[in-house]
């Protein structure tokens, strides 16, 4: 990415939007993200009425329904605090697509305002918090998979690896075709199961070939997809959200 993004100074308070996948399947990743932020001295506000960013309906073409759900989320952030999400895909939805989704609607201004405050967790930790990480874990070899939304929509391809490289005992290895999609794509994985299967199988093989002990990602959709396939294929690497990974290793005794 050649565009230079300017980041604000570290704020006192942020909103945290957990995302529905984290909420239901990987709450520990969300909690780890919150704790990493709190460790930076930031007060984290978790609006209890949050549900889903609306992306599943949006990418399926049901924009009226996506708008209904997104409109409800717009109301959750009344103060001008920044909004942090542990997912490039949902952050991308809010930052890039909310303004389009509400163009010409009464909520247009609010949608633009919310969008402008959205940050993905890892970029926030790296570029806003300038986080210091003290790795207390055992030596480990990991491969990173950055979601396509984080990489292309948000321009964050370098962020995850940069955080992992701050960890003294973590060896980051790169799988072949690192930028290629894992084949999740939300409903794509069930609408076109054979294509998705071919993609995720290749992704698992590529990660496995590096000999990594774990696959680290910042998006739970990719994680569910890649680790689900790896388990099915009896591969012996684990998957972990980058927030859980960092939090755990910085707090190991």
């Amino acid at each position: 990415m050649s565009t230079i993004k300017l980041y604000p100074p570290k704020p006192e308070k942020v909103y945290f939007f957990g995302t529905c996948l984290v909420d239901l399947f990987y709450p520990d990743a969300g909690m780890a993200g919150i704790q990493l932020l709190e460790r930076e001295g930031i007060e984290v506000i978790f609006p209890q009425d949050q549900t889903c960013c609306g992306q599943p309906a949006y990418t399926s073409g049901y924009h009226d329904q996506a708008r209904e759900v997104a409109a409800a989320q717009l109301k959750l952030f009344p103060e001008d605090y920044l909004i942090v999400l542990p997912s490039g895909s949902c952050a991308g939805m809010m930052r890039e697509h909310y303004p389009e989704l509400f163009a010409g609607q009464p909520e247009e201004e609010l949608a633009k305002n919310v969008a402008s405050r959205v940050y993905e967790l890892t970029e926030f930790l790296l570029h806003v918090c300038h986080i210091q990480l003290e790795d207390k874990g055992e030596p480990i070899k990991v491969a990173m998979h950055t979601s396509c939304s984080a990489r292309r929509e948000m321009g964050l391809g370098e962020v995850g690896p940069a955080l992992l490289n701050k960890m003294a005992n973590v060896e980051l290895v790169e799988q072949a075709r690192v930028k290629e999609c894992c084949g999740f794509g939300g409903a794509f994985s069930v609408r076109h199961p054979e294509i998705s299967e071919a993609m995720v199988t290749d992704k698992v093989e590529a990660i496995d070939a590096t000999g990594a002990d774990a696959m680290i990602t910042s998006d739970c959709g990719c994680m569910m997809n890649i680790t689900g396939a790896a388990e099915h294929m009896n591969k012996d690497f684990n998957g972990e959200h980058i927030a859980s990974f960092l939090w755990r290793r910085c707090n190991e005794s």
Partner: protein
Amino acid sequence: MSHNQVVQEFHPRVHEAITNPQIRANFRKAMDGLMDKRQLAFPSDDELQRTRELAAAIRLRALSKLPELLEKLEANLTANGVKVHWAETGDEACKIILDICNEKNAKSVIKGKSMVSEEMELNHYLEEHGIEALESDLGEYIVQLAEETPSHIIMPAIHKNTDQISDLMHEKTGTNKSRDVEYLTAEARQQLRERFEKADVGVSGVNFAVAETGTLCLVENEGNGRLTTTVPPVHIAVTGIEKVVENLEDVAPLLSLLTRSATGQHITTYFNMISSPRKEGELDGPEEVHLVLVDSGRSNIYQDDELLDTLRCIRCGACMNHCPVYTRIGGHAYGYTYPGPIGKILMPHLAGLDDAKDLPSASSLCGACGEVCPVKIPIPKLLVRLREESVAGDHNHDNSVVKGRGAKRKGMEPLIWKGWAKMHKHGGLYRTGTGLATVFRGLVPSNLGAWTNCRTAPKLAKTTLHQQMKARSQNNAASQKKDGGDQ
């Protein structure tokens, strides 16, 4: 429009391709090679991004004045002695070409590469009317020998490896079996040379039609394009109405991006600029030059500000080279003339969304296509727009120009999304819903069908993040209260 390619539904075609190791290996290898070459052709990302901006602006400017530029193009070509024809449909374009052939008593046509002629199935049409059409581009020639259609818009025979080509040529033309690409190429060239001499008409495509000067530009590597457009006494160029650009200066950046994006070449071996038939005293060139401008649904796209971006395309093929779906299923599985990402956004307009209904959803929206597109077509965004059109899922587009809109709005799906919206727009409802879901987490069927064919089922967490955060804030409140009470 008729399209003989579609013989079965999308998923069976995908299955056939994806389970064919030869297809998988041929495409993977070829696409890896093409991606590497493109990468090497753009050593500076800054330069790439600047040129993309410029190219996108050039195409956008041309499209914004399309009617005016087409008139200018016609006027200038006519003044140069080129005959211009307009065709609303592919069939009409075929008819125009047939009429020209008949007028000249032509029995054989030699063709340079032209995707528009594929789109309108010109070869079949001519053959049905007793005129032999021979492809002279090597890839097209191979595809024609195999009685197939192109699987890529730049490299039509990319689905075949050298062994397969050698076997095919041996079987159909009697060449020796060989892995020596140079030998095979030389043999094919020899066979083609003889045919050039006999051809009555040459048919070619057009890469850029320059309005201000009345010039038809043709980009190629084999010299067959030059032969097609100069040796036979009549040259007929055929192209879509969107290929027009305003002036000659516009061509340079587009050409530079086209060749680098397509094959990683800084320039192709041949770049032909055709502006008139043979003039008095000239030793070669055709006596007559025609241009057939085909609409075939394009002016429909033109009426929509967002969909209009589709027409910026300069047919470089980079989007397919970088597409993880195309790499896995190859070009034929799509079932249409234009495969890959550009096909997914273009075919619904040419064939109708009811016909091409599976194309817009067959993408993970990974964005690799949009990232490499030299004219910055926002392909993922257009895919989402077409998904919306397929299910007529947004009242914003009630006056849509998309043919076959709403073709996929059926069954339970609209109801499911309505239910989903209802649950997710009320935080309270959502929490009870997920709360309940966690209670029943042991009951989630471990066979989620499509998902679990190749993956284990995801496991619902014992407590949601909502519940954990709620418990946390209650604890905090309680301890604060306690702290307060102790004071």
